[in-house]
């Protein structure tokens, strides 16, 4: 935590927010988001994700602690439009204003050429709808517009709250590519989500939050190390068990004909079974599942709003 304040690094330090009525939305939360990576910010609904992002962006005043971007509190940034791009919700638009005009206002205030508005509209695929009033936009189009607004100032840091909401499968694939591209350019990309499979596909690192507290953070590789398992099915399970005796493994029964093995590869299991003459019906690798880890980490106590959405 004593690293120098790198440009583009987000540091959340002991952040706490207590809302009126003693609701502790965020509780002594600390984590760091590094440039050049996509960081997934995960947690069930009501975990405090949005409140945390709003504190990072200076919209909500922390009760304690602080959040900095490149070493500075958001409110002290010289030109926030060029430093940080944020897409917080898909509804921050005047319904009677066109997408293009919405962005042109942001250009004017942020000191950017008006042409940037058209450039980012092209980038998010809203070129043809640019002059239509936002009132007629679908949720997916509003998400794209919010993303366009975030990228307007070509910022080094992007903070996106549930950007995949309302996107169709094509849109989600597109978003994944875009975020990867932005991170590869050395930008900091912080994306909150409850769509875990999505996050597993795009994130390099994750920060997992539950009931306002940090549950786990780190690179996906670290979190998933050694957690791949091998699924084996055989009509002769006792024979298979005998063949595996003496191996440094964990075995977990799945059903009447199958077991899950941790600690060996499919090739090793296949070799042992072949040597013992045990017939196999299935031999497959089950990749680590973020969802499983997530539920394991967040399900100790049921959250105030029940199951994660």
């Amino acid at each position, binding site marked *: 935590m004593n690293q120098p304040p790198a440009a583009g690094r987000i540091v959340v330090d002991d952040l706490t927010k207590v809302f009126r009525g003693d609701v502790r939305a965020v509780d002594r939360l600390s984590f760091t988001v590094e440039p050049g990576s996509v960081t997934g910010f995960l947690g069930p609904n009501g975990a405090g994700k*949005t*409140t945390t992002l*709003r504190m990072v*962006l*200076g*919209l*909500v*005043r922390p009760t304690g602690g602080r959040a900095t971007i490149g070493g500075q509190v*958001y*409110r002290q*940034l010289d030109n*926030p*439009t060029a430093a*940080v791009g*944020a897409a*917080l*919700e898909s*509804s*921050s*638009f*005047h*319904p*009677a*204003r*066109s997408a293009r*005009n*919405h962005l*042109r*206002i*942001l250009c*004017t*205030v*942020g*000191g950017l050429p008006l042409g940037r508005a058209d450039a980012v509209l092209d980038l998010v695929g809203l070129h043809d709808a640019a002059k239509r009033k936002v009132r007629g936009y679908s949720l997916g189009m509003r998400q794209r517009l919010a993303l366009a*607004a975030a990228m307007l100032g070509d910022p080094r840091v992007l903070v996106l709250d549930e950007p995949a909401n309302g996107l169709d499968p094509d849109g989600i694939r597109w978003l994944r590519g875009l975020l990867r591209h932005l991170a590869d350019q050395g930008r900091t990309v912080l994306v909150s989500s409850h769509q875990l499979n999505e996050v597993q596909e795009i994130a390099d690192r994750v920060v997992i939050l539950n009931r306002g507290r940090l549950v786990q953070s780190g690179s996906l590789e670290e979190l998933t190390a050694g957690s791949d398992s091998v699924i084996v099915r055989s009509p002769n399970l006792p024979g298979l068990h005998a063949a595996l005796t003496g191996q440094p493994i964990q075995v977990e029964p799945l059903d009447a004909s199958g077991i899950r093995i941790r600690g060996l590869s499919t090739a090793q299991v296949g070799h042992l079974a072949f040597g013992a003459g045990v017939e196999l019906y299935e031999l497959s690798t089950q990749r680590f599942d973020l969802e499983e880890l997530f539920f394991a980490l967040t399900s100790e106590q049921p959250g105030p709003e029940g199951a994660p959405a």
Partner: protein
Amino acid sequence: MIPLIRGEFLKVRTTQVWFWMLLATIAVSGLLVVAQIAPSDGVRTGGDVPDLFASSSTAYVVVFVLGALGVTTEFRYQTITPTVLQTPNRWTIVTAKMITYAILGALYALVAVAVQLIIAVPWLSSKGVEVDFGNGSVQHAIIGVFAVVALFGIVGLGFGALLRNQIVAVVVGILFLLVIENIFLAIPKVREVWPYTPNGGIQAILHTTGSTHVVDDVHLLSTTGGVIVLLLWAFVPAIVGAAFTMNRDIT
């Protein structure tokens, strides 16, 4: 500050409210001229002309609403989020809006005065009443209209910043300006505070005939006093709004 003001003007221009408000201004100003010249006991001498032109100050209601919408629309449609993300300092936002809506008020005043002049000058001259723009009272009335209407852009803005809720700000503001102040005036003792209300300030500024500074037994303030009253109504809510309500968490 200049980019912010240009941005605020673009916000106004890119929705349609300004246009309907402009139509309302033109209609009300035109009707007021007709209502004052057409009747047989209407404007008949040069001495009635200053009060005729002072009536275009009625545009203050329209500009008040515009100002109130200038803040509350941002909260209603949550465009306050991108606004604050670009300009984290609430004082800067409120200051830019105050300047914008004062200029906007002056533009609406210009339209209101122009409509009245276009209708009144030829009509009065056909009735043998000459409009003398060199007359101090006529000048006072026209300058007063600009001052009143421009200041009401800020009054509306301050109400909006203070209350944040669109319906509440507009309804409370209109009720106060058009109904409650008149009730004040009707109640003995209570009417003594009327000169310090927004309408009391307006009357003090626009009062031109000089003979009696009395409305319903209440003595008006001087022109300067009226300006100070309106400045207070403009700045106090805006400052309180910027310091407190605008500074609350935006969730």
